[in-house]
């Protein structure tokens, strides 16, 4: 195995550089409430390359959604604020754009698909109206061509009978269909990046599979990149090329999907993997839960924030925060311990 080098993940590889669509560096987002400051995202750096799917996994409250919303500058302020970092989309500095410019990016270049479609759709407008509006704003077109485009989009997301469904209101569609209509809305302007935050959590297994297959097809056909936020490790294994594991607002492990599933290096990632029952393991296997509770983000433990729950923790872990360190070609971890040592 490679000797572990201790330096920060600094995007040094030249051959991948040209493929990078989104580069997030040192992102830090805080919320101030009742005199306390919650650092929801604490110095997060990662790249999304063209055509790839990057998954973000981690427990509830680890900062997955806040990371996504920070990229699109959707953080409610107050109480929230992006206090540090840089977000480059195709070289453009997202945090420096005017409100007008960022609004343009949201509808056209970057699409966001939320967990609960009912709250992000307008209940009094037909599906067709909601689909065509952003297209008209960003791309223009007359009524007839817009309608044709909408029907086409609904067909792409496999909504049956699209000619009639464009006239339907959101409540007239089932949950699965609404979620697909949301995806259609996101795709209207051929975005280059899709950010999908738990896009299928509220859906049934078979419908979930249909929708994720659909998104995967789109990334393949059009070279669209995707950030997929999910707590389902099975979904990650099936659809992600690379993975960010987040804990307490930080990336604790980062790498290719193959590497991370085969050789998890961070005790938290190991914990996540051994705490789920798996269909590919003997059915009697006892689960190994991660003990304890997620930390209070306004009052993090000293050193490594995971140390109170970590069975490998040593003195150094309680005193010093481990930086994100490269362990092999495509794999980084923030941990002092070598978990593979016997």
């Amino acid at each position, binding site marked *: 195995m490679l000797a572990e080098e201790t330096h920060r993940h600094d995007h040094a590889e030249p051959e991948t550089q040209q493929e990078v669509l989104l580069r997030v560096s040192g992102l830090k987002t805080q919320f101030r409430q009742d005199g306390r400051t919650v650092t929801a995202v604490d110095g997060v750096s990662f790249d999304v390359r063209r055509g790839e799917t990057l998954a973000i996994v981690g*427990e509830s409250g680890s900062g997955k959604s806040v990371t996504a919303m920070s990229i699109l500058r959707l953080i409610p302020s107050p109480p929230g604020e992006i206090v540090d970092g840089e977000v480059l989309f195709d070289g453009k500095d997202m945090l420096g754009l005017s409100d007008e410019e960022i609004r343009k990016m949201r509808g056209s270049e970057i699409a966001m698909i939320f967990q609960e479609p009912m709250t992000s759709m307008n209940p009094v407008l037909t599906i067709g109206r909601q689909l065509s509006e952003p297209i008209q704003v960003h791309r223009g077109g007359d009524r007839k061509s817009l309608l044709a485009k909408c029907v086409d989009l609904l067909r792409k997301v496999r909504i049956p009978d699209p000619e009639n469904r464009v006239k339907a209101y959101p409540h007239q569609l089932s949950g699965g269909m609404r979620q697909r209509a949301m995806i259609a809305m996101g795709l209207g302007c051929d975005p280059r990046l899709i950010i999908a935050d738990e896009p299928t959590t509220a859906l049934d297994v*078979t*419908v979930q599979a249909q929708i994720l297959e659909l998104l995967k097809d789109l990334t393949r056909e059009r070279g669209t990149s995707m950030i997929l936020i999910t707590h389902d490790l099975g979904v990650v294994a099936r659809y992600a090329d690379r993975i960010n594991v987040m804990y307490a607002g930080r990336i604790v492990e980062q790498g290719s999907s193959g590497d991370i599933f085969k050789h998890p290096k961070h005790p938290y990632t190991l914990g*996540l993997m051994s*705490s789920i029952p*798996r269909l590919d393991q003997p*059915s009697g296997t006892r689960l*190994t839960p991660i003990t304890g509770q997620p930390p209070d983000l306004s009052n993090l433990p000293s050193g490594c924030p995971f140390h109170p729950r970590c069975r490998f923790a040593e003195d150094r872990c309680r005193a010093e925060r481990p930086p994100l360190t490269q362990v092999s070609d495509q794999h980084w971890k923030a941990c002092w311990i070598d978990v593979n040592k016997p």
Partner: protein
Amino acid sequence: MSTNHNDVLLDVQDLKVHFKLHGGLFGQKQTGTVKAVDGVSFQVRRGETLGLVGESGCGKSTTGLGVLRMVEPTAGKVTLDGIDITALNSAALRKARRRMQMVYQDPFGALDPRMRVLDIIGEPLLIHKMFKDKKDYKAQVHDLLERVGLNPNMADRYPHQFSGGQRQRIGIARALAARPELIICDEPVSALDVSIQAQVINLLEDIQEEFGLTYLFIAHDLAVVRHICDRIMVMYLGHVVEVTDRDALYENPQHPYTQALMSAIPIPDPEEEAKRGFDRSLQGEVPSPLNPPSGCPFHPRCRFAHDACKTQKPRLMETDTGHQVACHLYDPAASDINAGDVMEDNLVRAG
């Protein structure tokens, strides 16, 4: 957990729960009927865990509630240890309920926010007069708290002071209080984070062993169900479509719906996933139970559907592999194509 007890604790025969929907200005007009559970039969043996799976709205919770008569069944018979639950008057029912408890999905909604944990967990003791004096009451609650991994000095707190996983433990402690024989767990871990899920699953396994409990375990996560259940029942739109032993169900699903369900579950291993592929044959969504399809409820989404499936409801019958399946493909009397086609097709896809 072994399953060589053939002693039936719970016997459910042809259970139906229909909800009448009312419209009109004063709700006086009946506008439709939801056949949430429509002729479900099954047995749960003492000490075993029977899993109940199926997609949202297929009638899993309603089946559980119907068994406990927390909603009144429209028809059918429920027998617990020889006692006909469906025939009991309300006083007798209250007594019988001591023996069957429920753990709910939502650890946030299921606990009364104004009650202290002491009284939430102790309430069943009170209802069934199961303590000597105040001291004994407290001691029992403290024992229960300890048993589910909570600190007894938390007894004076209120539910909002606990995390999701802790609240689910409180719900479990409450269900255990009356020393029941059967616990119906309705999605007990679905609302919990993965890391906390494992803690609660292990707890359920431990107390089953310790108290000799029988579980009806409702869930939609098939990996969790496989982990904890001995036998599994698959429901679709108010009907049972397949019942069999855990391993048989996962290794050799027979009903086309069960097969599609299995292929839809991703496995957390990228290499396995790349090999496995996804069965794209299942299209469309679960139809509305207000307007269910004729014949076999699954036929509009089934790629093996033939004429008989559109008109005749298949009965649940034992196949030669020991599964109980409700599908015309396995019914020699009803079929013009046969199970051989399904098997062959699976071999092609697997190969």
